[in-house]
């Protein structure tokens, strides 16, 4: 079941095309990474899902229904450019934002109490936002994003501006929200976050979707059948059967070499060849990192 289905969306601005026939499915309950270089069209897509703007053509479905005003309260949105009313008090501000998302004042009050205890920010209630540090403001904004317990949470670069301790806190909250059944869309170009958290990804480049699917499958797809081995000794004659890529010298005379296997040869065969020759310390397949995949996918697309 998909919580969001984007079908053939195109969006033009006066002098450029922001999205070109983009279709993406976002399965319910996953953490979905929306990747792409700056200016690729991520924010445009997010704004369409948030109903801030509408597509020129194409459709969006939320939970199988055409996206409409009633879905607003089911979405929580943390934009990349954070902002709060500077002169408003933290408590009042959160109450207001929660009410705009459809909570009653009492409901909002109760939920806020829980979050204020959880984040240990009880003393902030009557503080003016301008008296808080940037990191503190981000925490407040995170609370406002998830307070109404939305089914879909859209986070645009959620960790920018957080120190490592608070970033961890937010990361744990995101995982907890996923446990509770929320779907989370991450828009980011921090690949380590994607590596760690995302189940599914889509990569947008130059207004087009170039890649999407479960992260594991994509990694599988980008594997190059290359293995690494750390060893002591010499790989005599290996370059006839295998393609040896770069070799690095490690400590204690150990070397590390990447070996590319022809399609017909298995890893087991390579190991059998290696065993009599060298002293093996470690062996494994080179799984491409998200960063590698990102770079490759983006570079494969020629400049328009």
């Amino acid at each position, binding site marked *: 079941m998909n919580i969001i289905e984007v079908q053939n969306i195109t969006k033009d601005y006066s002098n450029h095309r922001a999205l070109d026939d983009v279709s993406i499915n976002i399965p319910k309950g996953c953490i979905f990474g929306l990747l792409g270089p700056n200016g690729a069209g991520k924010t445009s897509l997010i*704004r369409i899902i948030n109903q801030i703007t509408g597509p020129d053509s194409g459709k969006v479905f939320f939970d199988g229904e055409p996206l409409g005003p009633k879905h607003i309260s089911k979405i929580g*949105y943390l934009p990349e*450019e954070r*902002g709060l009313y*500077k*002169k408003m008090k933290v408590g009042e501000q959160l109450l207001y934002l929660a009410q*705009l998302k459809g909570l009653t004042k009492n409901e909002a009050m109760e939920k806020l109490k829980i979050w204020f205890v959880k984040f240990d920010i009880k003393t902030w209630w009557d503080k003016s936002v301008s008296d808080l540090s940037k990191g503190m403001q981000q925490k407040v904004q995170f609370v406002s994003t998830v307070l109404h317990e939305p089914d879909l949470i859209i986070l645009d670069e959620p960790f920018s501006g957080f120190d490592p301790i608070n970033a961890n806190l937010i990361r744990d909250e995101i995982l907890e929200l996923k446990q509770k059944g929320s779907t989370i869309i991450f828009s980011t170009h921090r690949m380590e976050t994607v590596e760690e958290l995302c189940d599914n990804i889509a990569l947008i480049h130059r207004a087009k979707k170039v890649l999407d699917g479960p992260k594991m499958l994509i990694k599988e797809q980008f594997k190059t059948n290359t293995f690494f081995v750390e060893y002591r000794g010499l790989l005599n004659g290996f370059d006839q059967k295998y393609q040896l890529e770069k070799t690095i010298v490690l400590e204690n005379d150990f070397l590390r070499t990447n070996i590319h296997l022809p399609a017909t040869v298995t890893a087991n065969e390579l190991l059998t060849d290696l065993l009599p020759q060298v002293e093996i310390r470690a062996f494994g397949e080179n799984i491409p990192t998200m960063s590698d995949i990102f770079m490759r996918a983006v570079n494969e697309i020629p400049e328009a």
Partner: protein
Amino acid sequence: MRNILLVIQREYMVRVKKKSFLIMTILAPVLFVGGYALVIWMAISSVDSKTVQVVDESGLFTDEFKDSESLKFSYVKGSIDSAKAQFKDSQANALVYIPANVIASPKSVRIYAPKNVSMELKSEIEKVIEKQIENIKLSEAGITHKILEDSRVNVSSETISLSEEGEKTSSSGAATIIGGICAFLIYMSVFIYGTQVMRGVTEEKTSRIVEVIISSVKPYQLMMGKIIGVALVGLTQFVLWIFLTVSLTALATTVLSSKMPKDSQQIQQEMGKMQKGMPASNMPGGNVDNPVAEVLGAVNSLNIPLIIGCFLFYYLGGYLFYSALFGAVGAAVDNDADTQQFMLPITLPIIFSFVFAQFVLRDPDGNLAFWTSMIPFTSPIIMMVRIPFGVPAWQIALSMVLLVLGFIGTIWIASRIYRVGILMYGKKVTYKELAKWIFYKV
């Protein structure tokens, strides 16, 4: 609908809770009434009497200087030199010397005083001398005091407006004052509250909260909520000002008159003078009809319910018309400093209407008056100037319809610019681009 109410509530509460709002709301009436009361207080309490010695060599002024509450006169016999010598030891505040040939050379009158004498004292003394010389000269020419008195006539005409309902006493003076006040209030509030809308929009834009808000509220709702919220702030401030001014005036009057019960008559009179805007003492004596009563009578002759109704309509209409445009400007720029370039076309018609108002006051039924009271850019101010003078019903109706169409139009245009502008950052916008935004599909 729920969301627009929430926005209105926030915009209203945030502004009403501000310290500057409280200070302005309380301070303005306090200063107004306080200044007023202070002037009256001074007028009442400055009655410490001064003594003036008179050396009258001409002998024409015996008993002509009458003691008043503030001035006591005493005549000194002998030469001016001895009088001057004695003056230093006496407690008198001034010494007036009238030479024997005063009629021939009136400029030879001298006032001696230890310090400079006040203008008031000087003119008082000069007045007495001038009047006496005038009298003497007139009687020399054979004109008696009686003839003189009779020749002073006071003309005060009443304007009677002829209408189907019959004759009605009207007062162009009162109409001018009421029209002017209404126009000024609308002018001020369009400026003050229109700019508040604009500031509010830029604040949301610069603080970047706007993207979060419009993921829950339609931009149109956000803009209208802000406009209505600020309008309510304005109304609240007006109501509080009127209430505070009235009750403070009542309080001040009670305090002042209880302090000096015997002078309460005078307070009334002083207030009357000030309300009339010109000192009653300038009028020829004996003919001071109660000016307050005159104004009140004239005011009663005006169609007060119509004026109040129209005032509310044009106040709100003018505000809606302009605040939408101010809001659009706020959305088109990145910060307050950039608003200037777009402000001019908006503020110009407002300022022009206020300038036109002066001419319309002189000729409330002329061509200029008619056209400027129809065009929505100027009608809120100009029509309010005309209404106290009486305007045909069809003109009022047409002007109102045009104003409603006008503000629907500006709100539509503003909301088109607004929805594009609030998400547009870091770009200097030109008028051409603004025009394009109106037709964008978002």
